[in-house]
């Protein structure tokens, strides 16, 4: 099972994209879309369901990632920040 993850990133240096690519690949993800310019990047990753929860926190750990917002589909009219979404980490 794959899960589509969408991230908006602010980067201190564009070279940090290399780290972003490497990490996504290491976690088993496939980059399906990227647009980046002037210290900003939007990426879409197809991630294995079992490791999808690891992407955002580990991407945030990259030193030159200044800001990372995980976008979740919220109907046709917009999106919500990851922090507002239902946490994926809690178990009953």
């Amino acid at each position, binding site marked *: 099972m794959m899960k589509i993850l969408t991230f908006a990133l*602010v980067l*201190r240096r564009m070279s940090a994209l*290399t*780290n972003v690519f*490497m*990490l996504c690949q*290491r976690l088993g993800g496939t980059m399906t879309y990227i647009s980046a310019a002037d210290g900003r990047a939007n990426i879409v990753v197809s991630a294995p369901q079992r490791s999808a*929860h*690891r992407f955002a*926190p*580990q991407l*945030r*750990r990259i*030193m*030159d*990632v*200044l*800001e990372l917002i995980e976008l979740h589909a919220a109907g046709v009219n917009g999106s919500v920040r990851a922090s507002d979404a239902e946490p994926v*980490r*809690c*178990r009953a």
Partner: protein
Amino acid sequence: MADRSGSQVVVDALVQAGVDLAFGYPGGAVLPLYDVLLGSGVRHILTRHEQSAIHAADGYARSSGRLGVCIATSGPGATNLVTGICTAMMDSTPVLCITGQVPSRLIGTDAFQETDVSGVVTGITKQSWLVRNVDELPQVMAEAIFIATSGRPGPVLVDIPKDVLVASTGKTSVQTTSLPGYDPMPDFDGNELDRAHRLLKASKRPVCIVGGGCGMSGATERFRRWCAATQVPVATTLMGIGCAGPDYAGRLGMPGMHGLRRANLAISDCDLIIAMGIRFDDRVTGHLERFAPDARIIHIDIDAAEISKIVPANVAINGDLDAVLLEWMLLLESDPVEPFGRWQREAMAVGDGLETASAADSGTIDFTELLDSLFDMIGSAPIVATDVGQHQMWTAQRVRPDHPRKFVCSGGLGTMGFGLPSAIGAQFANPNEKVLAVVGDGGFQMTLAELATVRRCNLPLRILVMDNKYLGLVRQWQEMFFDQRYSAVDMSDNPDFARLAGVYGLGAFTLSDPNEVNSTLQKWWHCDGPALLHCICPTQQNVFPMVPAGAGLGDMVESK
């Protein structure tokens, strides 16, 4: 201030950060830096291999909490650091690697000894830099030192082309205490701590698992007070050994694959795990579905990426452990918990599982008994460094250090060859402490050239070589899981390590008679100068208890 060369900027930054020692190995691209090191405030220790230099810097950092520094040249010098960098990354050790690089104009031409080392180590450092302009160097050095030592520590690498080391800059050394987007000391959520406290109060059978984060946070004393107040049984991971005081009645010992029976069974049976500064390594958890099946999880860690990475947390506290425990102690004072002494006694009564583990033939030296005798003799004060393998697990099961910085070994990466050079680093960091290196015959031979460093610096190290003429842990797996088909593990042609040590100028002892264990240990431990004890052990002794790969912690095998 007059213009400074790039090399002088590097040394200035080290001195400003309080660094007075670096390990390394020179070469062409880094010669300008070595020239400036002469007569500087930074003493340089020449190792016999770059890998040993970084392991020594690592051992220095682990045993002291200070920044470890190593220097290497470009190309092979830099790539020889890679295993050590990954070792430091896996165990969160603050190590600064400085590498020379070919001159800027040659970068990208496949020049002699050119390697893109900052690219190579991207995935195994907190951050790496290739500095192309000398004016950037003061800021990069400051950032590198800050990043390595702050938050969850880790290795960093600064790669400096030779012309940048030579070029002059008017920029002076700076100190960095903050970086955009980097929050090394996150403010934890007090509400989560309240929830954790309520879970602890409601628990009947809590177990604390404490890891390397406790010692790194400087939380050891506060953690021990928390233990005394709650009497929660404590399991210490390989990186957390020494966190619970050696006399704490609820010291369960190491959990996991070669963990003690009481630690593994307490975790399997508990209703609450309080995880402090651990990352739930697979060697600790065993089969995840069977890990603490009835337990709720409180996870405290400074690194948000660790929380719920492996085991989902019911309560997640993202913060510095010392700060969290400070608040938790205040809570305990205002709203005490009923101490868990009864449960602690029940958990401890299960026993360690080591009593049935000995499998040595009569007339041979049982290395586990030798370790018991040794630790009875030397107590909790010495620093103990190990290599990787059976001897490491036997030591981890038995060692009783009085502080987490007194047990040094490669946990996450399991790097053979780490033992001797890391002990060298620990000895430099703690010149007035007794330092013991316990090594196996396999790992020792990966870095034994450092006996020359031991002799040259006259380090009063004690080196214990467990020689069972096998790659013992691999042989054990082949015995247990591959129908005793022993492939590429035989080391029956090992040299006489005592003679070898003698050639290097160390004191040397050999032990093969079980009747001479105590007398030989005494002579070796109390002699002057560095000394090696070559202990000839039975070939077939296995490490128990053992949780087979894929099994749950409760499914331990305790003997052959």
